[in-house]
């Protein structure tokens, strides 16, 4: 697999990555509240080496740090999630959220400006009327492309707890935002109210044992959404059934394997991400050690389970001690739902081919990402025979974690966030999906 790669270094840790619906734009959010949008260069015959490359399109400050005076707590400006709205006109729109506030941003281009005003000069100053001897009609002249980003809506005060997910409905009019205990439904045009559709806060907070970890709307059925919990379960809800969707339509839960039981069983079963397949038939979940594919029609267990880094199973106590066991990894489908991808430690990321059952471990690093380099598969050895270039489990760098990954909606292009570096890998040989 020949890969073409780009690496961009950020001032802050990247906290989310998201392609838009065509894949032309790639948005990233970081810990400093900034959003950086990359645009894919149109392919042209004149510069064949630059075709399809992503370059910075726009940068803006989405969220600022805030202080909650009532609780004496800071509200981080870190961007937790970005979701693009389907494009409806020349402008692009996206939702970005920090822990508390969701914002709708409109991105427009300006490449022409009017010139030849009668009353104003080029700088906009009023002309001395005595110098005006004739009338002219202002004309639009081309100018350097300017990308303008404006905040169109601010959806504030909807959440007491930290927002972990946002998802735009297929109806393109509503979206949902989920925090640890509640999920709200918003209309994109209305900012002063939202509907609460899930509330799992117990009457007595001392009874709290489970929180919401991720949530997403079904890609085609505008009434269905799924949310995952810290106990490893998925709940599919139907908004037509009742206003408050506390009673799930379907509960997806795999019984615990008694042979693997430990004090860490619950923690490692906590689902950190859930994604519907593009087809809408499957769901992909990520927990600490595995990725699982669930069939919407089967609630008893996943149809496929893939081990991401099972060699960590014997290290769980250390990973609990250094808090790595709480790391929330995301997962992604490719455009044809045939390959799934997720991140791991040591800047490794993994891909699983659902058809061939083959998997590969790749590394996102500067050495491996020279332009037009081929990404070399990596291997972690757990004792026993050690091949050259293998990495032993104890040498893994747990500070280099790939939590956020994204896959282009139609092509074999992936975006990998490795701390404060963004890597974009393009498979030039096999550009089409299998």
């Amino acid at each position: 697999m020949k890969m073409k790669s780009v690496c961009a270094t950020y001032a802050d840790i990247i906290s989310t990555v998201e392609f838009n619906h065509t894949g032309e734009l790639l948005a990233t959010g970081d810990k400093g509240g900034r959003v950086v949008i990359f645009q894919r260069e149109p392919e042209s015959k004149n510069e064949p080496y630059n075709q399809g490359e992503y370059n910075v399109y726009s940068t803006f400050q989405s969220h600022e740090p805030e202080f909650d005076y009532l609780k004496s707590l800071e509200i981080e400006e870190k961007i937790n999630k970005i979701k693009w709205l389907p494009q409806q006109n020349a402008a692009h729109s996206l939702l970005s959220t920090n822990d508390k506030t969701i914002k709708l941003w409109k991105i427009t281009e300006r490449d022409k400006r009017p010139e030849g005003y009668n009353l104003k000069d080029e700088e906009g100053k009023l002309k001395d009327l005595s110098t005006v001897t004739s009338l002219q009609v202002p004309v639009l002249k081309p100018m350097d492309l300017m990308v303008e980003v404006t905040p169109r809506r601010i959806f504030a005060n909807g959440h007491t707890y930290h927002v972990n997910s946002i998802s735009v409905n297929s109806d393109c009019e509503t979206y949902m935002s989920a925090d640890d205990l509640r999920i709200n439904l918003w209309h994109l045009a209305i900012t002063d109210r939202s509907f609460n559709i899930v509330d799992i806060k117990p009457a007595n907070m001392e009874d709290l044992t489970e929180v919401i970890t991720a949530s997403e709307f079904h890609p085609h059925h505008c009434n269905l959404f799924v949310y995952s919990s810290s106990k490893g379960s998925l709940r599919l809800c139907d908004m037509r059934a009742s206003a408050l969707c506390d009673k799930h339509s379907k509960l997806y839960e795999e019984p615990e394997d008694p042979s693997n039981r430990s004090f860490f069983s619950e923690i490692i079963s906590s689902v950190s991400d859930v994604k519907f397949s593009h087809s809408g038939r499957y769901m992909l979940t990520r927990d600490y050690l595995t990725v699982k594919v669930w069939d919407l029609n089967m609630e008893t267990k996943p149809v496929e389970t893939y081990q991401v880094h099972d060699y960590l199973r014997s290290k769980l106590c250390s990973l609990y001690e250094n808090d790595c066991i709480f790391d929330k990894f995301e997962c992604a489908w490719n455009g044809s739902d045939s390959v799934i991808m997720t991140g791991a430690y040591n800047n490794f990321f993994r891909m699983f081919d659902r058809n061939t059952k083959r998997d590969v471990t790749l590394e996102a690093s500067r050495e491996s990402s020279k332009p037009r380099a081929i990404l070399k598969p990596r291997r972690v050895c757990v004792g026993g025979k050690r091949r050259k270039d293998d990495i032993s489990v104890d040498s893994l760098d747990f500070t280099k974690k790939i939590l956020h990954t994204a896959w282009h909606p139609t092509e074999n292009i992936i975006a990998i966030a490795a701390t404060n570096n963004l890597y974009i890998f393009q498979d030039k040989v096999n550009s089409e999906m299998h």
Partner: protein
Amino acid sequence: MGEEEGLHQTPFLDTMFVRGLKRKCFDGEEDIEGTLAGIKAIPSYNLQRQSLLDMSLVKLQLCHMLVEPNLCRSVLIANTVRQIQEEMTQDGTWQMINTQSTGQASLDRLVSTDILCRSSRDQAEGKHVPAYGTFNKDFENDQAQDSSDTMSTASAVQAPRNLQSSVWEMENPQENKGNFQKSLDQIFETLENKSPNSVEDLFSEVDNSYYDLDTMLTGMMSNTKMGHCDSLETFSSSTNTASNSNCKSDLNDLDHIVEILVES
């Protein structure tokens, strides 16, 4: 790699954790070498479980920051604590620990915790592990006082007692008071060893309401950051055992002491 070969897998805690303990033990002074023979084997499951419990409680304490703590993480840790304590109740260990506080600790327990404390003092600061040893010692009244490294350890000392009391509604008012007094001693020792600046840091950072696991969860989840006096009020109102009245008088003492220390 070679270190691993000498250890066999424990079903519940990983070898790295065990290896860590073993390494610390060897860093002690020479006169404890003899006692090392007793613990060259992997520390017992009970000890490991106790360490995990201690670690979890410290984690819950330490997630008190300027920014709101991560609720998911807190809930998962709290569930782990409950799980351990349930198991300890089931196999009678919890009961055993209670009765031991009269001072009849087994020699093994004394030796193992002593070594943990000693070697951890020789270690660099800033690790959670030092807290384990001091925490274990809470269960033996006659144990010589060692200074705890952090104030949060002292708070952690009280937490399992009150969790136990509120979850299972066991009434041990006398023991609660005794251990409470003990934790106050540890607070004083910590303060004596620290510079004046860090005293302020200690009191500004740590919220005294984190004595009770449930209070702590309530405190975090209702998202209120309380002043010291307020937190103590909440603490006394949220415990639902008969030891309430005793706790309240103890809390008033602590309140008074806190004021004195802060002013000095």
